[in-house]
């Protein structure tokens, strides 16, 4: 919590920019943990659609079009990523309340903390939000903030969570200008 407040204060005041966290190995560590939740869920005989309370979750879209990706300034997708992470955070927290299986609950808790860390990383990259540009084709009418989907079970939620991290979050981090400057 202390670290969070420090980051927020720094981010808010913008007195001194945070050092960008460009190492993708951090994310590459979060991705397997997201997969572990799926595995634990399957092992705990929490069958699809029959485990716990059937609840609907609003989750972000995860699809990525590489063709479109090349032509867009990735930094503009930071808003979508940040929105999506917040959505996943809420959804996972709601799901954890319904889960009684302690290993699964622990895994979900871990995923939630990872999402928070990703938020910090994104913040460190100092991605400026530009309105109007998205991951997907500009022909889509829906605005970026409302690009969500609804899932009705925990397995689907976990699948979306994993896909989101591996796709959009990772692409954004790898294409961040702050990291590109370091690499070049």
């Amino acid at each position, binding site marked *: 919590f202390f670290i969070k407040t420090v980051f927020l204060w720094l981010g808010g005041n913008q007195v001194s920019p945070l050092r960008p966290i460009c190492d993708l190995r951090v994310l590459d560590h979060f*991705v397997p943990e997201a997969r572990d939740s799926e595995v634990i869920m399957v092992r705990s005989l929490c069958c699809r659609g029959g485990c716990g309370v059937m609840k609907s979750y609003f989750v972000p879209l*995860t*699809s*990525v*079009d590489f063709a479109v990706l090349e032509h867009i300034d990735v930094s503009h997708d930071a808003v979508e990523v940040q929105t999506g992470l917040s959505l996943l955070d809420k959804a996972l927290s709601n799901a954890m309340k319904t889960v009684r299986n302690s290993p699964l609950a622990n895994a979900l808790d871990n995923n939630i903390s990872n999402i928070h860390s990703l938020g910090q990383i994104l913040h460190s990259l100092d991605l400026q939000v530009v309105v109007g540009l998205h991951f997907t084709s500009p022909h889509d009418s829906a605005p970026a903030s409302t690009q969500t989907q609804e899932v009705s079970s925990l397995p689907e939620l976990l699948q979306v969570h994993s896909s989101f991290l591996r*796709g959009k979050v*990772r*692409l954004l981090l790898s294409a961040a200008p702050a990291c590109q400057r370091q690499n070049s």
Partner: protein
Amino acid sequence: MTKMRSDRLKIVFMLCLAFITTGGQHFESKVAQLLRDETEDIKCFVEVKDLTCFWEEEEERNNLHDQYTFTYSYENKNKMACVVSSLSLLASNKTVFYCKLPKTPFFTPLDVQVFRDGRMLYSRSLNAENFWFLDPPRNLTVMSSGKEGQLNVSWLPPLLKYIDDSMIYEVRYAVEGNNMGKVEVIKVSTMLVLLGLQPDTRYKVWVRVKPDGVAYTGYWSAWTEPVLGVTQPSDVDPLIMLLVLFIGLILCLLSMTVILSHHKFLLKKLWPDIPSPEHKFPGLFTVYKGDFKEWMSQNNSSMWGRSVHVYTEELPSPLEVLSEVSLTSHGTSQREERQAVEEDEEKESERSDSGLTDRWREPPQAHCLVEQLRALQENPESLSQSLLLQSHETYVTLNQNSQGDDERQVDDVFEETLPLQTLFTTAGTTSLNTSHSDLGSLQQSSGSGRLSSQSSFEYPNHTWPPKGPGYTYMAVADSGVSMDYSPMSSSRIAEPLGRHRMYTNDYKNEIFLHKWPLSGQHTQSGSESCMGPGW
């Protein structure tokens, strides 16, 4: 202008064709491989950026692609159709239908379906980012690294912008002509140094690529065409060789000099001399050529003293025999017997000189004694035995009653040969007592009480001649077992030994306590022979 344009178009067309054909070659091989390995009805893979799905033509029908419909959808969107194409595989003589998605969505579940004549044939849901089937790495080069047993291998990564940092490579290398090779796995990096190779050897190298599995997964690509590389020959520096030889030579010379300088010492240690007693016998081997008798004779008192000393150490003399009183009648008859004996001669001379009338009848045992003594001196090995022999047998006592009366002496002698048992039983104790008091001398008070085992040191009825009494005595060195008289006589008279032994033991002990300086020569029966004890 138009000509130039047409030329450019042609060039572009040719390049595109070339690209397609190469892509097609890879495409066909990929299709063929997945056809063998993949078990799903709809087999899909991503080559560059787009997903391709294909299915095998059913054997029953031969119509091409007019009845097949391929649709796909994702994220709850409407289904989209894809154009179906066909491909005939020459190698396996099979036909497949495939569809290449125009806009492939990644990181989202994709639902694909195949319809035939309006009926759904196959369906599948998959994430496109999990089915990468990349082309083999390009521009594989193998070069010698300049060091022994090493090769530098390098290649180009796939032309994919977003997943080039998620690649994993496998490098296979083997000696040319050998199928058994080793495999090295390397992440992200597109160059590798092979170590531990044989020098001056031709190696074949292959490389293939696959996504690392974190964000993207897929199938292993095909192996590249093998590229040959030759390792450097092993270079043994001639300078080092010379140095090694030189040092070796110096070490050899040093060791040789050490060995030569200490060869005597070493020889002594390895081949020790056999010790010789020559230094103890000066002149024995050099002058007398090993003749010990001559050498002995030549050496005088100094050597004799030494030898005597030696003799006394090695040959303890058990007896000292001195002759004293010469006997008359019997003595003459036995003189002849005694003549050979030194001690007898001495005794005779003493007797003759002294003029003693008393004759001392030397019992036959005395002669035996002397003989035994001589034998002992000559043969010291039989010392212990002879000691026993003598001690058991040879006790000669001077009998006073035998002074003037030979017959009587003889009788006395024979009386003395009476079984000692009676003597012991009747007056044994008294005589023993008396013997104690008189230091071994026993009074011949009674005839029966006369103990043949007396050893008379004193002659109360007879005065010693002034010239000194000649008496024979025996000093037995080994005194413990020696004073057994009676068993001898009793055994000859065929008496049981046991009882006598008992008595003799008693007698022996008591008599012997007085430590005889003289031991009377016991006149025993003539039946006794000069032999060792019978028991």
